């Protein structure tokens, strides 16, 4: 496997609010290798955005704080990096695009102005050169009339176009890693597919590693090499996309896969995991998924399960993997 470009080790980001300490990200570990596309999936509120914002130290603080763990980017621990150093990393080494294309661009400045700025923060080039580069980048991401678009304001563009602008802006300094936080959630299906194709192209042609946050397993299947499944602030399972989709080990992952609509399936009703994501709490005892898990047994409510290493980079956080429950797990996986 290629060298690691980003390595999270037991990262914990907590929010200190009036209603108590929220462990929004709890002991999260995973790795992104050079040229790889890694997906982070999980329902709303599972801590995907907080994880990705933590990497660039963009969590609002207060109330947020990285309380534990490390974030290695090419042998440098970003969790300990100074703000001055982070400014050099952001938008240059690691770029980020967001869930909300409609509001992620400043409404009162032109596209050209905002793109030039992104370029000139990290590259010492003239305004003229920056404009040319901006137009070039807009063309790369497939924006028609790029020469005109640079003089237009965000409200004059559609959501899909704005997300393309965000990608063009993020790619303008040729970052090694692109973090995309649900880049297609707010877009309709055809535009979604176009944006994903664009990201695939960037990954292939520029060798940019991508950390793709999504709650859509369909997106994962389409583009990711590996998947990290998060639930209530914790990683519950990770492995290669193929393995996970074919043979999910954690009951939560199984539930997520069962709830995917199947085009040729005979099922009449769409499955959904009963209940909702529990808000992470500091004083939680037991497995966080247990209240919604159909296989939960006594132990699940008393202890927090550790991560079981299942070999070949596969991990799962579930007591079903402990030896005495091994048989039961087999039943579960063959039934689905």
């Amino acid at each position, binding site marked *: 496997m290629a060298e690691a470009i980003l390595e999270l080790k037991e990262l914990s980001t907590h929010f200190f609010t009036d209603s108590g300490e929220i462990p929004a990200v709890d002991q999260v570990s995973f790795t992104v290798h050079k040229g790889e596309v890694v997906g982070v999936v999980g329902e709303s509120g599972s801590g995907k955005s907080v994880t990705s914002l933590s990497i660039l130290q963009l969590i609002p603080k207060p109330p947020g704080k990285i309380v534990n763990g490390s974030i290695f980017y090419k042998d440098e621990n970003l969790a300990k990096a100074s703000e001055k150093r982070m*400014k050099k990393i952001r*938008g240059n080494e690691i770029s980020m695009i*967001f869930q909300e294309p409609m*509001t992620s661009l400043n409404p009162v400045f032109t596209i050209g102005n905002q793109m030039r700025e992104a370029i000139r*923060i990290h590259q010492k080039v003239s305004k003229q050169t920056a404009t040319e580069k901006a137009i070039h980048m807009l063309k790369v991401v497939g924006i028609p009339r790029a020469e005109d678009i640079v003089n237009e304001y965000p409200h004059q563009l559609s959501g899909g176009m704005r997300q393309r602008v965000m990608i063009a802006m993020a790619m303008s300094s040729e970052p090694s890693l692109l973090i995309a936080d649900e880049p297609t959630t707010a877009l309709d299906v055809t535009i979604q597919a176009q944006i994903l194709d664009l990201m695939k192209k960037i990954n292939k042609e520029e060798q940019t590693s991508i950390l793709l946050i999504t709650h859509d397993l369909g997106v994962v299947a389409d583009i990711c090499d590996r998947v990290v499944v998060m639930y209530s602030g914790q990683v519950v399972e990770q492995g290669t996309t193929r393995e996970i989709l074919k043979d999910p080990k954690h009951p939560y992952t199984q539930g997520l896969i069962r709830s995917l609509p199947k085009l040729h399936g005979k099922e009449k009703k769409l499955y959904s995991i009963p209940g909702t994501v529990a808000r992470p709490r500091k004083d939680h005892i037991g497995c966080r998924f247990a209240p919604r898990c159909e296989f939960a047994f006594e132990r699940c409510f008393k202890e927090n399960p550790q991560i079981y290493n299942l070999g070949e980079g596969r991990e799962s956080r579930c007591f079903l993997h402990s030896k005495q429950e091994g048989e039961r797990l087999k039943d579960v996986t063959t039934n689905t």
Partner: protein
Amino acid sequence: MVTYILRRLLMLIPVLIGMTLITFSIVHLIPGNPAQVILGETATADAIANLEKTMGLNEPYFVQYWNYILDILQGDLGTSLRSKAEISSEILPYIAATFELTLFAMIFAIVVGVNAGIISAWKQNSWFDLAAMLIALIGVSMPVFWLALMEQWIFAQELGWLPAYGRQDSKDPIAAITHLYVLDSLIHLDFARAGTILKHLILPSIALGTIPMAIIARMTRSSMLEVMKSDYIRTVRAKGSGQFLVIYKHALKNAMIPVITVIGLQTGVLLGGAILTETIFSWPGVGRYVYEAINYRDYPVIQSGILVIAFIFVMINLVVDILYKKLDPRIKY
């Protein structure tokens, strides 16, 4: 932009008609016969009838109104009863005096208010923020006349640093051109005089500017705090830009959109002439001009003074609308 301004100007027409209707009816709302009121109780019936005829008071109302509008359009604001002078030329120096004072008061209010608001939002809950917001709270609730008297007592009387009254040194009056004395002294290339005139402006500007300054500071702070939470600010930070660019470029331009309204409103209030402050500082502004006219029952002056003040208000609004459009490209009409 040009069509936008033209459209805004067209929209002003009904406003201006409404304004003139109100000022027109002032004369007719005075109890009793206007000619009688003007001439006083001892006037003979003949004299009253004569005046009614010259004033056109025996014509139907719409004819009178029509004549009134025609006069205004020709720049004729009538004649003062007291001084027998043309109001349109008599009022100019007063407007200039108020304009100059307002300009300096608002410069003070905007420069101090906006910056205090920005720093307060940037360093939220710091000692600066707490101190600035306390001062702002005191600023909005303090009576202006009290502040004015305190200023005069401390800086003019006790310390003797600044003049307490008037627009200039009364022993050596300026040869006015525009009646904006700072500008006039610069035209004369008389910089020493410009200095004295600026000194005269300091105390009244601070007295008048304090309330707008406090309001602007509070508005800027809350608006900045709101904007700093937005997604596009997160984007700017994710680009790797420094705090200065985030605040003074991206956040400020958005945050100023609501603040501009407040600035416009406050400018309008000051331009209307602050009678109390103008009286305390012996400032010959429109407020005092109209106030004195009221004392003398100089109806044409009251009528035209109010019309001019209202007109200035409307113009300020127009400027605010244009600034809006400049700040926010999303605005369409």
